[in-house]
């Protein structure tokens, strides 16, 4: 018995896939931006030298690094509203979980990047009379960002793949839409093949780009 592949019926639902793709890309972009901003704040808090900031920030990073994204997502959707006493829409819970999960990893990338800058750079900038903010902005960050680009792109790639989890809380991303199409056409093999191809077409150029950046840095 051989399976007869037939993508015809699936293409009829192309608009559903398009909506799913928009959600996937939108959530990736939003959670990457919020995650990087939050990750930067976490890193600065951890390095501030004030225990009242550094200890909680360190705890947040470790909690989100050491629990699965799927568990965080489900927890944000079902348990967090109980804790806070307010209801969160699936999209809000999903964005919150993905952003914080990303923030923990972005924070680690920022920390490693800053630690890689030679101590003499901080000394020289301080000796000129730069305030800590100016030093970060003008001297340290421009150097650290160059080193962090590759790892940051890799993390965004992971972040995009992680958005597939939000289908669990009924956000209509690519996977969720695929499930809809699948139940309408009874063609799950074709549906998941299509989804896999779409993910690959987006991510392959990104990973290649990251590799190029890495190579240029070492070259």
């Amino acid at each position, binding site marked *: 018995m051989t399976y007869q592949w037939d993508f015809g019926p699936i293409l009829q639902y192309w608009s559903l896939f398009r909506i799913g793709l928009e959600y996937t890309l939108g959530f990736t972009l939003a959670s990457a931006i919020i995650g990087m901003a939050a990750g930067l704040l976490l890193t600065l808090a951890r390095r501030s030298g004030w225990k009242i900031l550094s200890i909680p920030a360190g705890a947040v990073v470790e909690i989100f690094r050491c629990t699965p994204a799927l568990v965080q997502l489900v927890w944000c959707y079902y348990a967090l509203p109980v804790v806070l006493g307010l209801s969160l829409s699936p999209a809000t819970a999903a964005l919150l979980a993905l952003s914080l999960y990303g923030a923990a990893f972005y924070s680690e990338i920022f920390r490693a990047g800053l630690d890689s800058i*030679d101590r*003499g*750079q901080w*000394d*020289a*900038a*301080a*000796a*000129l*009379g*730069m*305030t*800590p903010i*100016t030093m970060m902005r*003008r*001297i340290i960050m*421009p*150097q650290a960002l*160059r080193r962090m680009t590759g790892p940051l792109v890799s993390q965004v790639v992971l972040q995009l793949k992680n958005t597939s989890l939000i289908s669990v809380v009924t956000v209509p991303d690519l996977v969720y839409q695929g499930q809809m199409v699948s139940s309408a056409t009874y063609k799950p093999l074709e549906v998941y093949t299509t989804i896999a191809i779409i993910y690959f077409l987006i991510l392959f150029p990104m990973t290649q780009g990251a590799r190029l950046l890495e190579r240029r840095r070492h070259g």
Partner: protein
Amino acid sequence: MAREPLMIDIVNLSKRFGRRDVLKDISLGVPQGNVLALIGPSGSGKSTLLRCVNLLEAPDSGSVTIDNHTMRFGAGASRHRTNSMAAFRAEAGMVFQSFNLFPHLTVLENVMSGPRFVRGRSRDEAERIARPLLERMGMESFADTMPERLSGGQKQRVAIARALAMEPKVMLFDEATSALDPQRVAEILSVMRDLAQAGMTQIVVTHEMSYARDVADTVVFMADGHIVESGPARQVIEDPREERTRTFLKHFHMGKA
């Protein structure tokens, strides 16, 4: 003899790293326009003392004065805000053993970095300060070069220009020639000598004993966080009073001036 006004005044300065006393109640003054050479074995605390003058290391107690700006530390002194520490540092230029040029900026931008990012000058104004300094250091043809392409001696000349661009009241040299090839040492020492002749107050941590003897007004010999001996340069180097100074100086061969 009238006492010259002090440009740098260090009073009862102490610093510890963990349980180790690195500086024990150090007091010394540098009159305006004088050069003070700090010598001593490694681990004697001379570099830490230099880094305390511009607060790269915050002293645990005592005070540091540059011109008429005093920073007090320890019991009874209020905690200093990072921005007031930064403003204090801006009055002292510092040159490091490892150059520490900013690798993402060109030579010209390195020299402009103080005026632009600390003084808030425009690009044009900063360039008008930086270009003559590069010329003075013989580096004007390297203005658009990235630091990684320079030799050690060239890097150090740019680093000196970068420090001077802040129009500092004093210059601090932390083993500025120790990472250089022997033939480059002389070129940096001659730049430092020119600065001294132009009246720049300096504290120089150095292993170049002939430079200390010939250019410095005062030589201070440190060991174990103490000042062991201090006096006129020629006397301390050629005829030290203390046995420890004599033992230390035996390791150096000096050409006669």
